[in-house]
């Protein structure tokens, strides 16, 4: 290591260190996702769970919630995102105890609670599938500006649904805190979840 001038060593480095320390203790947390506190509505819904039970946001008070819109006839991106969220839960380890993942169907015509249940539990037992009437789902998507639309029908009657890639994270009080996308990595999401869980304790 090259020798440093003694003035630099004696004065500048400690000063720099103090500055860094000050910056660390006052700087906002270094989120990897977008901080949306105060910019998106609280968690609120009346939907049907994958076990056919009516559910509302009140059922998730006291838990951190990770919410993603998708549909079961989505063989690529939705599974990839659910695998990423399953990996986030694994990375959180014991801290995942009070974290739930909500998979909200944007295809209520095909996503019955039964199909949804088989689909979500194949990825992680901590994922709750939610479906509802087309009106309920439209209202829910609108609330979170999560546009979706059915693409043209295929000759066999099948169709795809283009949907929001948003990953919404709520705190135990149901406040929207962070917004990511299906393109964020499990490491990035787990990093922010750990920070958030630490803050909220």
């Amino acid at each position, binding site marked *: 290591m090259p020798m440093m001038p003694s003035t630099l060593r004696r004065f500048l480095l400690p000063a720099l260190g103090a500055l860094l320390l000050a910056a660390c203790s006052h700087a906002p947390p270094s989120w990897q996702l977008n901080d949306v506190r105060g910019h998106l509505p609280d968690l609120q819904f009346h939907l049907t769970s994958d076990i056919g039970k009516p559910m509302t946001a009140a059922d998730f008070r006291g838990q951190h919630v990770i919410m993603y819109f*998708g549909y*079961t*006839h*989505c*063989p*690529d*991106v*939705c*599974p*990839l995102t*659910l*695998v990423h969220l*399953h*990996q986030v839960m694994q990375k959180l380890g014991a801290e995942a105890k009070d974290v739930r993942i909500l998979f909200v169907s944007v295809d209520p015509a095909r996503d019955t609670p*039964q*199909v949804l249940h*088989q*689909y979500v539990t*194949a*990825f*992680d037992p901590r994922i709750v599938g939610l479906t509802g009437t087309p009106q309920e789902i439209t209202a829910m998507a609108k609330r979170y500006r999560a*546009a979706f639309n059915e*693409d043209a029908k295929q000759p*066999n009657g*099948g169709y*795809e649904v*283009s*949907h*929001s*890639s*948003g990953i919404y994270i709520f705190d135990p009080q149901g406040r929207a805190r962070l917004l990511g*996308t*299906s*393109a964020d990595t499990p490491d990035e999401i787990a990093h922010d979840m750990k920070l958030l869980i630490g803050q909220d304790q």
Partner: protein
Amino acid sequence: MKLLGRTFVLAMFSLTAMTAFAATAVSPAANSVHVGNGWVRWLPANLPAAGYAIIRNQGDKPVRLIGADSADYAMAMLHRSMHNNGKDTMEMVDALGIPAHGVVQLAPGGYHLMLMDARHPIKPGDTVHVSLHFDNGETLQAAWPVRPANASGSSD
């Protein structure tokens, strides 16, 4: 008798060779296109599944993947997932070009083979058979393992 014996040996040899090729899902040696690391993500309730693989073109000319079918599914279609303006969309793809001496990946979040309407119940641990058709006339037969829904690759 001698001729018969030779035929038998040859037959045995090609059978062994075929088995070896089938296991690694590689096409006959004459082909310029090769497929490896294939796998299928299993989904329950006979939902459409996605197949992934790495396609290598060892030839001097570009080739295009122009079709696929499977003995295990009524339909196999090339699709591409895209991430645009905050939306996840999927579109059908007519052909996928593989440059000369190039590699193209069918991978989660991008190009994939959408496998629909299984002809019989399929579960993780099974092997499904897929044929890939290229515009140079080659057809590759591949045998891909079916992996659990939350798998992240051909092995993990």
